[in-house]
Each structure stands twice: as structure tokens, then as C-alpha cells.
């Protein structure tokens, strides 16, 4: 089964108490959480990977960063999005991790309704406690391993990130 891995700002989603409120629905999500999704051209960027390769997507995300900040990712279900008439389109991804280059997906043509559907999936993931947090320590290890395996060239990373490794 494949998944769409997307970075989120967990603290924004936790502004309203998702975890301790059984009746919490997508309509209760804070505006900051929705705007933190940062659509561009009515699309959201994600990496499509197999269930057992989520860390490849995380590596694709963090290897284009300038800082080793902790990040949160959620794994969206592409078939559920498509069954809600949300279009997924393969587009070139921006990452120095060459072997995942072709796995970048845009969640396209988003509207008020379909962005709500994406938000609904995120709320569900958060309620289930399935948001994945990668701390600075985890990120460093992912990057070191990829460099040692030759999957990532250190000099292709942003200079600021290189200095922090």
C-alpha cells in the first residue's frame, strides 16, 4: 500500500484540543492549522512512498532544509483522497535525494471542500496518535545514514544544513 507523506505543523493542529475531545470534528480545527498547510497554486506537495518506506519521504523533505528543526509528518491515504474526487498529479520534487525524485505528488485543484477533506484525514490521523514526529536527533541519523550509503551527497545539501551536521 502506498502513502502520501506530508509535513505539518503539529502545534498549530493542537491549538484546539483534538486529543481529549471525543466530539472534535474537522469543523473545530483552528484557522491557523488550516492556513499552516500553505497551499500553493491550489495544491499541496507530498511524497508518495510504500508503507514501509516512510523514512524515504522524510529524508526527501529534510534534505532540502536549511535547519535541523524537528518536524511532524502525516501519512495520507491516496485512494481515499481520490475517492473524494481529489486529483493527484506526479510533479518533479525538489530534493537532493535523487532516488526518490520521481515520487513527488501534488494534491491538486484544491477547493474549500477538498481542502476540508484533507484536513479531515489529518484530524483522523492526529486523533489516532499516528502523527510522526522526527526530532533533530532522528533527522541527523537519517541524513548521516543516507550520506554513508551514498544516497545523498553532503555537498548537495544547503550550506547552512551542512554546517549543522
Amino acid at each position: 500500500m502506498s502513502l502520501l507523506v506530508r509535513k505539518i505543523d503539529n502545534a498549530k493542529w493542537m491549538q484546539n484540543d483534538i486529543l481529549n475531545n471525543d466530539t472534535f470534528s474537522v469543523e473545530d480545527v483552528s484557522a491557523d492549522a488550516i492556513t499552516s498547510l500553505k497551499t500553493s497554486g491550489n495544491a499541496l506537495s507530498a511524497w508518495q512512498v510504500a508503507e514501509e518506506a516512510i523514512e524515504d519521504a522524510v529524508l526527501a523533505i529534510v534534505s532540502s532544509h536549511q535547519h535541523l528543526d524537528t518536524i511532524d509528518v502525516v501519512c495520507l491515504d491516496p485512494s481515499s483522497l481520490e475517492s473524494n474526487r481529489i486529483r493527484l498529479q506526479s510533479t518533479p520534487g525538489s530534493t537532493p535525494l535523487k532516488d526518490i525524485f520521481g515520487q513527488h505528488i501534488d494534491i491538486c485543484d484544491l477547493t474549500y471542500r477538498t481542502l476540508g477533506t484533507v484536513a479531515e484525514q489529518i484530524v483522523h490521523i492526529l486523533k489516532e496518535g499516528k502523527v510522526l514526529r522526527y526530532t533533530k536527533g532522528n533527522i541527523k541519523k537519517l541524513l548521516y545514514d543516507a550520506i554513508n550509503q551514498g544516497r545523498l551527497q553532503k555537498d548537495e545539501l544547503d550550506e547552512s544544513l551542512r554546517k549543522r551536521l
Partner: protein
Amino acid sequence: MSEKYKLTTQDTGKVKEEPVPSYGQTTLQAGTTHEPVLEDLIDLSDSSGGVSENTLNRRRLRQFKENYTKELLRIICEQDFEYGFDSSADLFVRELMEPNEAVTKEWLNAIYIEQFSDIRVVIGLLQVVSHLQYPEIYPQGPTMALAALSHANSEVRECGIRAFENWGTIESLNILRNVKCTESWMQEYLSQVIKDLEKEFGVQ
């Protein structure tokens, strides 16, 4: 292209205006008055007849407040921050840190205290200081992050933990070991950061 003005490193107490590149829409207003105010006049000279260090420091801090506070607050409120990347506020502050680290830190600390009830500004400032190296921002940065840990807002508290995590010093570890979080998700994060730092320093 818009220009903004910065203090020089010269220890004369005089402000030399020189243009530096601008970030996006950030435009500093250069209409600052450099007339002495009461705080400068209280402690005007030292025994050798020059201007005292205290006077110079007060003057520089006042000039930072006059020249840059409004602009930094505007940048923080308008910027599109994303974890992992430099923000416009990062670039703005780093530019000011270069010639005068000491006054920039004092100035950031002063804004932080004045704006402690404004979540957006407090978070923006914490994100900026957490991206600076520990020795650069010490001791004001860690003090700001410490204050963040007791803020009523959970996002501010998380930013406090993030800052100590980014600095990753033994002092950061000692501080984080004495923090308790009420939210389960944040406590989980805190425990993981402590574990990461313990591993890094080889301590239990």
C-alpha cells in the same frame, strides 16, 4: 531597491548609516533622530573625558529600538514561517547580529519582554533565537526559552523546547530534565529530546 541602515562596529557611540540589502518587502525607516535623550545625559563622560560605556550601550539600544523594532515586528507578523527553513526574521536579525551581537541580543530580549502577551511575536522571536548558535545568543536566548516554558500558550512552550533542542548543549539537557508538560504529545516530544541529548552526551 529599498535600503535599510545598520549600526557599525566602531566603538565611538556614533551611528554611521550605511545601506545593506533588503529582504523582500522589509524596508527600514532611516528617519531616526540621534539627539541625546535624558538617559544619555545622566552618565555623559568617564574620567578621561570620553563618553562612558554605559552611555554608549544605552544609546545603541535606544537606536536599535527606534530603527528596527517596528520593522522586525512587521516582518514576524507577515512572514510565512516553516520549520526547517530560514525565515525573513532570521535573515533580518542575523544581519544585525553581525556588527553588534551584544546590543542585538539586548534588543531582542527587550522586545520579548514587552511583547510576551503577543503569541505571534513571541513564537517568531523564539524561532529566530533557536536558529542562532548557542554562544551567539547566550545568555539572552536561553533565558527567553526558559520563560517560554512557563507560558500559558502550548505553542510557545513547544518553541521553548525546540530552542533548547536546537542548541543541544549540556545546559539545555539540564534545563529540559527539569521541565514537565501537561499535554501528552508535548511530554512525549520532551522525553524524546532528553533521550536524544543524553545519547549525544553519553549520560543517563
